[in-house]
């Protein structure tokens, strides 16, 4: 018997961003936690950036060759260091800030984007040592990054993204157009 969305994913709401940067089916899923502090100037809700089920990397036959958190000459997401409750020192992310680049064995390259504005808390180092994790458990242990938006930005996050229902409609349209 399966439980819910249960376990670690309980208390998260799923938001979707399909076809990021116009690239077909490169969809992402942002898991937004329900816990928040109250008040302006404070933090919003913790968000986990993951691949949505339609992403090419999660389709059968794809093997991941490498995952690289060095997104430019000057910026490695692995060097992100936060301190204190307010997560000082965090790299600031905009919606289209790259988190990492993933190459598959068939020569394709995919960029994973933040999808939301906020402070980068951590990137998942477990997928560096075990890339298969990303494909086996994309919604939990295979997550890409944890981002913390500001309280004021929380609303704009959910406004820029699709609900599960809306995303399913997108998926349906894709099926229809391809058939």
């Amino acid at each position: 018997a399966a439980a819910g969305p249960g376990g670690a994913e309980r208390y998260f709401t799923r938001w979707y961003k399909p076809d990021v940067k116009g690239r077909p089916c490169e969809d992402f899923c942002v898991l937004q936690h329900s816990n928040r502090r109250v008040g302006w100037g404070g933090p919003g809700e913790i968000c986990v950036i993951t691949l949505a089920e339609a992403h090419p990397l999660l389709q059968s036959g794809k093997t991941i060759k490498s995952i690289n958190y060095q997104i430019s000459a000057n910026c490695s997401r692995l060097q992100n260091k936060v301190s204190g409750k307010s997560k000082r020192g965090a790299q600031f992310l905009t919606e289209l800030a790259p988190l990492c680049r993933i190459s598959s064995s068939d020569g394709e390259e995919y960029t994973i984007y933040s999808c939301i504005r906020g402070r980068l808390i951590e990137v998942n180092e477990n997928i560096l040592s075990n890339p298969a994790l990303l494909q086996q458990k994309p919604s939990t242990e295979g997550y890409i990054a944890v981002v913390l938006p500001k309280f004021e930005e929380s609303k704009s996050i959910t406004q820029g993204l699709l609900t599960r229902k809306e995303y399913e409609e997108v998926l349906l349209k894709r099926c229809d157009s391809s058939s």
Partner: protein
Amino acid sequence: MSSLTEKDRPVVQLLLNTGTCPRCILRFCGVGSQVLYRHPAKDLMKDLQEFLKNNQEKEDTGCLDGADPPSKRIRLEQTQEGPDDVNHNGVLQQVPSMNDGNAAMESSAGKVCNVCLGILQDFCETDFVKKVCQKVNSADYQFTSFVFSVSLPPQLSVRERAAWLGVKQEMRNLGFSLAKDDIVQLKEAYKWIIHPQLSEELGVPADGKSLFEVSVVFAHPETDKECHFLATACPDCFKPAKNKQSVFTRMAVIKALEKIKEEDFLKHFPCPPSSPKKLCDALEIQCNNGAVFVAGRYNKYSRNLPQTPWIIDGERKLESSVEELISEHLMAEFKADSFNFSSSGREDVDVRTLGNGRPFAIELVNPRRIHFTAEEMKRLQQAINNSSDKIQVRDLQLVTREAIGRMKEGEEEKTKTYSALIWTDRAIQREDITFLDDIKELKLDQKTPLRVLHRRPLAVRCRVIHTMRSEYIDEHHFRLHLKTQAGTYIKEFVHGDFGRTKPNIGSLLNRTADILELDVESVDVDWPPTL
């Protein structure tokens, strides 16, 4: 007056002339006899006059024929010709004229003292004592002793300085030197006088360490501006402080007075200080009892009860809370203003606390009642337990503030035991989970759980699971009993928190695991003492 000596004479003379009350005069002469200050003001005035007259008599040994000697006597404004006014020659003393070469003195009795502004005058009288005690009695506090604290308007320090400088000047002119050291502090003298009266009226002793405080704030708006000149003379003493209304606090004024030079002081402030028109006002008479501490252990039987009230955006999300259910009765019985609840760790809303419960302590602020027998505490415990089935308390007792430290020690050092109901995605057989029972001292690395990461720093915690014991239920469920180090996140150990707690039950069983229920079985802190 045997406490006064020859060298005090000019001081007494000057101060009496310039409108200072008898008790302040005694202070300036360094008279340390508490009893003396308690004499009625009228008597003290008489004694001072006698003291001065004696000097006069020494000088006037020639005037025995009844002619009016130059008078140095002070006349009470209120009284007319009474027996007091007759010298031992039977001749009526006259009010001295201003032309009198021996420095005419105006009647200063009946006037408000230019140094203490009436504090050592009317505020030592029975009427005021009665007023204070009335306030205390109507406030309905339980107490066995009291401490009386007094807040004086800052300009008193300024006036004291001015009067002192006048005395210094006079003594210099007469060729004497004067040390400041033996001036009796106004507050001290005031307490000498008023403590015994309060003590008598309230029926309990005055004790500096008492937890029951009666406080009075005195103000004298008429002279409030007298401190202001210090701000121009010593600006760095008067920085605008965040919460204070006036920058001219007692401390700031005293500091400035230490810094300012005598010449500068005298430029800005009259010496001797002027006689005020009115007495001080006693603004507030307040009572406060020191906090009492009640400790115990609580059990939590609800999976829908937060520790503290859960209010978001002004809306209460869940009814009641552990602290409210326990404190409600205590607040009512102890008649306190407010409370502070703390416990040795805490559990989530959906977690029960079983076994002998979790230690807690409640600080009751400004309680009206403080004495409770063991019997009464037992009944109080029963009342709390009867009022709710969501929580139960035991070992309810009064403790000291110091004892709270023991409870907080426990939070970081002591072990806890739990019982978790676990679900697995793939089927398990009995033999699949028995190995858990053999694992001892399992070291975990737990990153700050995602569910608290918004308000806690990102860190990795090493925690130890000392022992585990599994109970097979069916192919997808088992119960796990664990004994862990304090500060271990159990839920995250079960579901793995996106792989951020390692190892976890999922990784140990090679499955996806979820926690359906969690109970605290014991909190291994041996405080408070079991009753």
